[in-house]
């Protein structure tokens, strides 16, 4: 049975994406941001230099296509409720909620641009992707995301800080994706070694 025709598989896949997204956002909020603030000061409350959920965006969109967007948006909304403090929510207001669909759509936009250019990179297609190519797609998605986020937060961020925020978003997404893929690689490696010793 194909995943596209199997509602159970799609629902299960989406639930996993939401959980992994929230977990990665939590790790970013509670572990990455405090360390970043300690070493670099408060560059911005809007962007992390290692934004792990970008890896979830790219990998889940690679595997599930447009279906991943709903799960990514749900995960992002849940993450904002759970991890963004009240002051930041009050400061950013509606812009923070607009930023959620922009982030959720960024990877899909990157994959669709490649598809329209005749170089579809979705999993299961004719093109066999390697991890470097997937990072390149993630880089395109992070550029699209940072442009979108700059537009969304245009009224909130002072013009002098915009370049810093754009660069932090783009770098944070890309580094976050690389770290997320490395962690996933180690998880698969661990599973393989564990399975071999059972």
């Amino acid at each position, binding site marked *: 049975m194909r995943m596209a025709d199997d509602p159970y*598989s799609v629902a299960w896949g989406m639930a996993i994406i939401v959980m992994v997204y929230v977990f990665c956002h939590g790790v970013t909020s509670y572990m990455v941001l405090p360390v970043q603030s300690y070493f670099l000061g408060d560059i911005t409350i809007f962007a992390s230099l290692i934004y792990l959920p970008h890896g979830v965006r790219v990998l889940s969109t690679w595997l599930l296509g447009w279906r991943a967007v709903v799960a990514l948006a749900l995960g992002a909304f849940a993450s904002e409720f759970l991890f963004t403090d009240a002051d930041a929510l009050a400061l950013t207001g509606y812009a923070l909620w607009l930023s959620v669909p922009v982030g959720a759509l960024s990877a899909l936009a990157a994959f669709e641009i490649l598809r329209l250019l005749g170089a579809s990179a979705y999993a299961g297609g004719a093109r066999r992707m390697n991890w470097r190519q*997937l990072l390149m797609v993630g880089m395109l998605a992070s550029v699209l995301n940072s442009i979108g986020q700059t537009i969304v937060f245009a009224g909130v961020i002072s013009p002098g800080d915009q370049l810093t925020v754009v660069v932090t978003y783009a770098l944070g997404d890309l580094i976050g994706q690389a770290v997320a893929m490395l962690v996933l690689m180690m998880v698969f490696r661990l599973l393989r070694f564990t399975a071999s*010793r059972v």
Partner: protein
Amino acid sequence: MDRLQAIFELRDMLRQMERDIGLEDLSPAEKDVFQAAHRLTETPGQMVQSDQIRRDPLVADLAQATFHRALRSLLDLGFLERPTGARAKHYVVRQDLLHE
């Protein structure tokens, strides 16, 4: 896309990443022994005898001790399995590694 195919594609990509960043699992002798066992497996689950592997040109030049060390290591790492109840020196290449 088939669910298993998606997992395989993800796993293959991460496996390639492991190799590219230098986290290779196998020594050259282990790779040769595994490749020989893989080559002798025509259908998933088929048992391969160590003597058959030993005769493969890829591993014919290995010292006996190196060959046996490689076999034992491949068993420990899970690349080869000894099915329950199988006779000694009979191995199976792990089925989920045979899709390629």
